């Protein structure tokens, strides 16, 4: 038992952080979304991420992947969350997996090489068949390259969004996200993977939890920095417990989210019986940390946090989007209660 990162893992983290800072900073994404371009990621940056092997990091080597575990992917996605990097990272990585494991190796190669895959977000008038087919109203996140991932507890699939009806673009809360609305009159997928082969949804919980952890950590650090720098009444505002204690709570929640996310990633990598329980717990812990920390950071920042001058608003909105994409907390909590407890 060891939850410390190895030197190899530290290298992945450092390289990711450096790349994100260079190619996908919030300065760059702000330029993009302020000019009306969504998703606010440049093709060049996305291609560079593909070149770094990000979309094949956890894919087994026999499918052309790098062969790392979900733990390493989780560490990468934490950095993506911390940077608020735009783009359909979660669905692309998981779609590559769905394609490869279901035998669609060409499609997997294409995705790994940089074809982004968007995410289908379930709605109330929406049904997913056992074969990964989809019917009803859906929303699509960042499905600009024509493909989208569909996730359900029993199956994961990839659909061709061009075959959906009534597609229209609507502004997303998160301005870096391309959001579309469409309807499907029972659309069959171009690839699908039953959960009995691999429960892709569990991995999605962990990757989203990782991003939300990174968001919570960013918020914690932004608040602490402000609390140290900002002077009112002759002292840094961080001397006030009304500032210090919420910052401490953010630190605790971020660390809990981080620890649980790693625990869950390893539970899946090690095929523990309680893997789904741990994955859902990670999603719940990280979503709570992200929501609490981003909104608390706005309060700590005061007026400035409420404006586009500071990045806090971006993180609030990202957290809001990501904690809802897999169906929302009521769904996850209900499932968590049905499961057997932890091993």
């Amino acid at each position, binding site marked *: 038992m060891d939850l410390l990162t190895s030197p190899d893992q530290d290298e992945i983290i450092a390289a990711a952080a450096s790349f994100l800072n260079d190619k996908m900073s919030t300065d760059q994404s702000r330029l993009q979304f302020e000019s009306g371009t969504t998703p606010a990621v440049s093709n060049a940056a996305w291609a560079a991420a593909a070149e770094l092997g990000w979309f094949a990091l956890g894919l087994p080597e026999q499918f052309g992947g790098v062969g790392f575990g979900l733990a390493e992917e989780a560490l990468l996605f934490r950095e993506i969350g911390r940077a608020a990097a735009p783009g359909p990272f979660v669905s692309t990585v998981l779609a590559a997996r769905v394609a490869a494991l279901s035998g669609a190796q060409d499609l997997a190669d294409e995705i790994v090489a940089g074809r982004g895959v968007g995410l289908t*977000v*379930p*709605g*109330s*008038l*929406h049904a997913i068949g056992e074969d990964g087919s989809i019917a009803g109203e859906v*929303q699509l*996140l960042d499905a600009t390259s024509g493909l989208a991932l569909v996730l359900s507890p029993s199956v994961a699939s990839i659909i061709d969004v061009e075959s959906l009806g009534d597609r229209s673009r*609507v*502004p*997303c*809360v998160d301005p870096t996200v391309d*959001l579309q*609305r469409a309807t499907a009159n029972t659309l069959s997928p171009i690839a699908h993977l039953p959960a009995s082969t691999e429960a892709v949804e569990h991995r999605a919980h962990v990757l989203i939890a990782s991003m939300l952890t990174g968001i919570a950590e960013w918020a914690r650090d932004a608040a602490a920095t402000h609390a140290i720098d900002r*002077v*009112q*009444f002759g002292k840094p505002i961080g001397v*006030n417990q*009304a*500032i210090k204690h919420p910052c401490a709570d953010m630190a605790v929640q971020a660390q809990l989210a981080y620890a649980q996310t790693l625990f869950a990633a390893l539970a899946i990598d090690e095929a523990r019986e309680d893997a789904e329980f741990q994955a859902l717990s990670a999603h719940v812990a990280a979503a709570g940390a992200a929501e609490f920390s981003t*909104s608390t950071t*706005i*309060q700590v920042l*005061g*007026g400035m*946090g*409420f*404006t*586009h*001058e500071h990045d806090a*608003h971006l993180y*609030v909105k990202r957290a*809001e*989007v990501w904690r*809802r*994409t897999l*169906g*929302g907390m*009521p*769904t996850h909590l*209900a499932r968590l209660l049905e499961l057997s407890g932890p091993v």
Partner: protein
Amino acid sequence: MDLSFSTEDNEFRDEVRTWLKANAPTGRRPKESHAMREFDLAWQRTMHAAGWGGVAWPVDYGGRDLPLTQQLIWYEEYARTGLAPIDSRFVGLAHAGPTLMLRSSEEQKQFHLPKILGGEVIWCQGFSEPEAGSDLASLRTRAVVDGDELVVTGQKIWTSFAAVSDWQELLVRTDPDAPKHKGITWVICDMRSPGIDIRPIRTIEGGADFNEVFYDEVRIPLANVVGDLNDGWSVAMSTLSFERGTAFTVSQVQLASSIEALIDMARSRTSINGRAVIADGAVAERLAKARADCAALRALTYLGISKNAHSTQPGPEGSMLKLQYADLAKRVYLLGLDVIDTNALAFALDEDDSDWVDRHLMAFSTSIGGGTSEIQRNIIGERVLGLPR
């Protein structure tokens, strides 16, 4: 002790309701700021013409000087129109105007007050600065007396409607050597003066109602100083009790409407699991709790008004109301997102749902603007409970 209103009050309510129904603007308020200014001023002129221009203003200045109970009734009915609780007329009518009444010269009153009430001008506020937020008295914008003028250089922030305002209530530092509360002057600034540069600040929900205002050797006649030079802090603080809590009623009533609207939506909408949203027991409990909390907020408003009707010194209910309103509004509008569920991803999926996202984002400001919730808690702890500073 009673809840019921007098026959006279009930007749007054009928009158107000009838008048508002017939006269309140029904079109959507424009988002563009100049059109918004014209919309707000036209509405003020309509009200003024019918005698509703300043329900809390003294009769001498053209107002109605209604007793607090009737102010309450006015604002309760006003809230039902769905018009914004605070619009571009707010600083003039509820802050700068009342300050002028209390502290300005007869000449200043004669010039400005009729224009405010008559819907001719918009005022804005120039108090906060980047380094002077909660600690307002540490403001640094400098004004030097030069002949019969003040020459102002510096920066203000969080000025609403700056670009469409005619006048500004401006706090400047005229004596940098005095203790921080003692060297401040309150002055009327003409927003068309040379040397003023206005830059909008985009806020979280995408609006740009706030501005930074930069002053580069802006010349303001000394005749525009209100009260004495270096006595501006006391001038600024003198208006805090205006309307004694009644105007806040509009926000409280509109929050109650939001809660009822959410309950209706939760009953009629289906959630992702195929059941009515309200069948989710946790959502249902939050909605019910919001109802109870909002009822108590209204009761506290009534209690505050009952007290203030018997006292010129407003009680601590003001800080309590502001603090509780902020907390409840943030809870309710986050709950709104949980009711519209995955539609919360879209900012304009359909107009109604988009509005809930907008309100959620806007609600972040309720615990920051006009004195943060942390400051309110200090005030309540110290002034109500007598805790040490």
